[in-house]
């Protein structure tokens, strides 16, 4: 059985006539990584936000179905979704620093988060946080728990975000441009870290990114979106080496490559 199945999903914003996402279907099996690439406005982020039940105001699912572990996510109440989010399904964002309250210490927020999902004393929750941070290769977890977000580098904040997202060993991790704000060497570290989650916990991942190289590297299945529609899908070898769609071909041609297209002689 698929862990997540999206069937014919359409999402619209406000009274806008053109749907942001139109008739998108995808399946994710346990332990599988699905990458969605596309340029801004292609609807890639809207897809995973719909799964999370976190569409921005004015956004609503206008058609289709989202099944998680066989049952629909769409009809659930806010409380049911809230219990699911952060435990069975979690999400990491482009800048995990921005989702953390800047005037509270990392530890305070981490403890609060753990205690909303599990009955633990503050001390135990703190210890749990430290343990997760250290598992994510953040040295001296205790020190990080006592830091404010601005005291950490972008790469460290992203690791904190991943550590928090993985606290309850979710079955599904949704990653929205998780490396786009990072330097290239840090990006490589974070990509490797996300891939290790699958090895360790068999976590399924949907990653949304405009970086086609990152998407392809991580993907078991790769989807290319444009104007709210999936224009191409397949294994990364299929999509990268034998793109069938014209848009995919243009997109691939525009990616700067070492030894590729030169603009000057």
């Amino acid at each position, binding site marked *: 059985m698929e862990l997540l199945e999206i069937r014919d999903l359409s999402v619209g914003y406000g009274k806008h006539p053109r749907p942001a996402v139109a008739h998108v279907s995808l399946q994710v099996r346990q332990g599988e990584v699905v990458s969605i690439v596309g340029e801004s406005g292609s609807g890639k982020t809207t897809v995973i936000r719909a799964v999370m039940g976190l569409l921005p105001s004015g956004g609503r699912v206008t058609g289709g179905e989202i099944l998680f572990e066989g049952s629909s996510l769409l009809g659930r109440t806010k409380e049911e979704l809230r219990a699911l989010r952060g435990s069975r399904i979690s999400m990491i964002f482009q800048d995990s620093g921005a989702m953390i309250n800047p005037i509270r210490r990392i530890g305070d927020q981490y403890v609060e988060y753990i205690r909303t999902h599990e009955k633990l004393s503050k001390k135990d929750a703190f210890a749990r946080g430290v343990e997760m941070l250290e598992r994510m290769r953040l040295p001296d977890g205790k020190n990080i728990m006592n830091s404010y977000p601005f005291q950490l580098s972008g790469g460290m904040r992203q690791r904190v975000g991943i550590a928090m997202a993985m606290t309850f060993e979710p079955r599904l991790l949704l990653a929205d441009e998780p490396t786009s704000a990072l330097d290239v060497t840090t990006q490589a570290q974070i990509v490797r870290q996300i891939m290790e989650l699958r090895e360790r916990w068999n976590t399924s991942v949907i990653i949304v990114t405009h970086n086609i190289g990152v998407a392809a*590297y991580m993907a078991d299945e790769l989807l290319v979106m444009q104007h709210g529609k999936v224009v191409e899908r397949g294994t990364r070898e299929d999509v990268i080496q034998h793109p069938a769609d014209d848009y995919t071909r243009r997109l691939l041609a*525009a*990616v700067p490559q070492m030894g590729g297209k030169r603009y000057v002689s």
Partner: protein
Amino acid sequence: MSHEPILTARHVTKQFPAANGRLLTACDDVNLTVCQGRTLGIVGESGCGKSTFVKMLVGLLAPTEGEILFHGDDITKLKGEALRQNRRKIQMVFQDAWAAFNPKMRVVDIVTEPLLNFGLIRRSERAAKAQELLEMVHLPKEYIDRYPHSMSGGQRQRVGIARALALEPEIIVCDEATCALDVSVQDRIVELLVELQQKKGISFVFICHDVALVQSLSHQMAVMYLGNVVEVLPGHLVGTEALHPYTQALIGAIFSTRMDFTKKIESIESEAPSPLDVPAGCPFQNRCGHCMERCRREKPKLVEIEQHHEVACHLFSR
């Protein structure tokens, strides 16, 4: 066409005062040359000093030490009207065109403001001049009446380029000018820059953190790390001849659609130290796989390995 050096930075150092009486060295003894009608690419990660360096080139910051020679004259010593006149020759395009424009100004006012500032056109000539500038960057003439918010990111960046072109500068500095754009839009903007270079002989300084992009558009590429230039080499040789371990690490961290997807990513661990505590010796020592005892003691100098190829690394010093 000859490619004479027109702008030369010599021993340029920039330090900023930091808390507790310490000094942050953003650029440390940088020597780089911009040649007429060519593109100098500068690549490096955040905090490497590349933006600080180009701000000194355009006169937005003054170096702590060193000189910047433009046609032989040190522009860091310019003051008053001479400084103002010099700005005409070196213009800048910013990363975020959205933030670089006054949102209440129309395109016609944005692109002709520099010309009015220097008294080069009359107000009555604005519309015609703006249309001419938009044509150069392949935007429809009707766009002169638009506001920045009613254009796409790529179109806004074209307006930014049009504004930089208005004063017919000799050098245009692009600070991450395409990084906020989608790849297909980036591709078209870079083609536009190259076209302008070929038509008008403009020199470009192009900074970006994407080494694959920078090497593809640079005649000469410089790699910066913690305020130091660690390697300089021709763009077309970056893929095959780059020597410095940090340049190698940058190339190794690229996720390419042509890579072998089964291979483990070789990324360097850890992060760059704070520019407040740059270690003695080689700045890259704590992340380098080839670090020797000498690297901790003595800072390597940038030396010429071959013509147009310089490296600052003890592995290659003779």
